[in-house]
């Protein structure tokens, strides 16, 4: 692994260890632990989205659907079939991967706008499915009483324990993703982003890699969905609507889509904005979201993460 990544990883781990210590002792930000759990869950999805969009150059406006598939599979299997949550999570991954493969093979033959619309359409269809299959999903009002997670009989029902679980998984996924990025597969993805013609001529199986990374990103989203289900204990279709898909893309783009660290930064920033700092704006948060996204795309196309090296240079000089 590159030394810059190693440093950043170390910094992130330290931050994650210190965060609960501070948060739990300062009452004003005591509930930040709860928000950080959601940040972690969205980070899981967005690392996959970053691999797909920033590295392979393929857009998806339907990732809320994969998040929802994981969440609903876990929720339904645990409440209606009393399955073990961990087994249900694995089942969710299997189902989501299968759906992603079936949708991905024809979709990823499409390019640009067509791919965007196809994934958007897919996301809306899945959302309608969650709404309409009342006997399975509880319809628009959803269902509740989903059990929490436990490990070896130790129940993860405190915020702290869930925080540790979620961020442990985020770190593992991050390391896995960084390893993929800095390998022949990562290079194949980036090469097809820059020139599909040349990538093909070098023998890179471009369509296979597009589908592979699409399925991988769906798997990340599915795991995130299962974690979400067991944390909130309640599911309804409105948590997985089309606007969430857009918000996920927004997080990745605002942070900087050509860099997986950008996805983490954007997720952290926009989740805190949405859950905490934008309460001043009440319902008008989408106005602010739209403005932020537009400003970043127009004036900072590489995202906020692009500012980090610049700032650290200024820091060192100062």
């Amino acid at each position: 692994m590159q030394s810059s990544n190693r440093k950043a990883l170390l910094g992130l781990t330290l931050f994650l260890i210190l965060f609960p210590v501070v948060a739990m002792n300062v009452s004003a930000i005591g509930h930040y632990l709860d928000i950080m759990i959601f940040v972690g869950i969205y980070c899981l999805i967005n690392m996959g989205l970053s691999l797909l969009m920033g590295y392979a150059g393929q857009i998806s406006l339907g990732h809320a659907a994969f998040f929802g598939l994981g969440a609903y599979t876990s929720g339904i299997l645990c409440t209606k079939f009393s399955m073990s949550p961990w087994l249900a999570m694995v089942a969710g991954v299997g189902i989501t991967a299968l759906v992603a493969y079936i949708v991905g093979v024809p979709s990823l033959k499409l390019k640009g706008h067509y791919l965007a619309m196809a994934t958007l359409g897919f996301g809306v269809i899945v959302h309608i499915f969650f709404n309409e299959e009342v006997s399975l999903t509880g319809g628009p009002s959803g269902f509740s009483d989903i059990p929490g997670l436990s490990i070896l009989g130790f129940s993860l029902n405190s915020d702290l324990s869930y925080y540790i679980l979620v961020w442990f998984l985020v770190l593992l996924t991050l390391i896995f993703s960084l390893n993929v990025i800095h390998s022949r597969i990562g290079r194949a993805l980036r090469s097809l982003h820059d020139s599909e013609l040349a990538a093909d001529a070098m023998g890179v199986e471009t369509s296979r890699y597009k589908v592979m990374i699409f399925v991988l990103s769906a798997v990340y989203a599915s795991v995130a969905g299962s974690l979400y289900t067991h944390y909130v204990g309640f599911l309804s279709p409105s948590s997985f609507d089309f606007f969430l898909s857009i918000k996920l893309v927004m997080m990745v783009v605002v942070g900087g889509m050509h860099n997986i660290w950008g996805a983490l930064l954007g997720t952290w920033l926009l989740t805190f904005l949405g859950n905490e700092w934008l309460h001043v704006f009440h319902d008008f948060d989408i106005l602010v979201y739209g403005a932020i996204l537009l400003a970043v795309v127009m004036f900072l196309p590489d995202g906020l993460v692009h500012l980090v090296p610049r700032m650290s240079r200024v820091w060192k000089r100062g």
Partner: protein
Amino acid sequence: MNTESSPLFLHVENLQKSFGGVQALKGLSFKVSPGIIKAIIGPNGAGKTTLFNVITGVFPPNGGAIALNGMSIEGCKAREIARLGVSRTFQNVEVFGRMTVLENVMVGRHIQSRAGIISTGLRLVGMRREERQIRESAMQHLAFVGLENRATELAANLPLGEQKLLEVARALATDPKILLLDEPAGGLNTRETEGLAALIHRILEQGITVVLVEHDMNLVMDISDEIMVMNFGEKIAEGKPKQIKNDPLVIEAYLGEEVDYSDL
């Protein structure tokens, strides 16, 4: 089929390609024997780049046959043809701009490596060893074209001449038996072109057959063993440089361009 040891013969028979009613290739036939430098020349719009694109599987042909050692490959995908030992560069440079120079060449090693998503994600031992080999081999190919001290720069930041060399290194990294160069000297200055001629000879010494499309007549006459001349999607002449120079059909085809034969 094992391409490691056997030399590769390329046969093209009656090849046809049309785009929306325009015939770019009208029944073209020729062959390339192993171990030679073969140049394909012709005025703009003669169909030279289309020929490369059809051979390397960018477009399927509308008719005719392409064979490598007798095995027909027409209609194969580009990635399959790369695996059969035919690699190429592009007329309008297609480097991977946002990757470093070294990473560009490492993509060339893609087909010579096999680590899957699990072993790369977990960095298993075999993958690490393979990754080291990819890096070493890529460095060697960079050194071969003389770009070793550019390894960590972004490919998009190189000047055009070096991007063209980078494409050659990337193509060589696939371990090809046949290398197709599409206007390698386009945009190069005289000194760079001389370097290119030397490089092409060194590539030949590695046992790699070179087919090039080129406009620079000095270079073509200087280094080629055989020349094929195309015009309007057809072959109008083929032979040794000396024969081509004196072919009346060739002179006629080039008349509009006023080629100065005195310095050929």
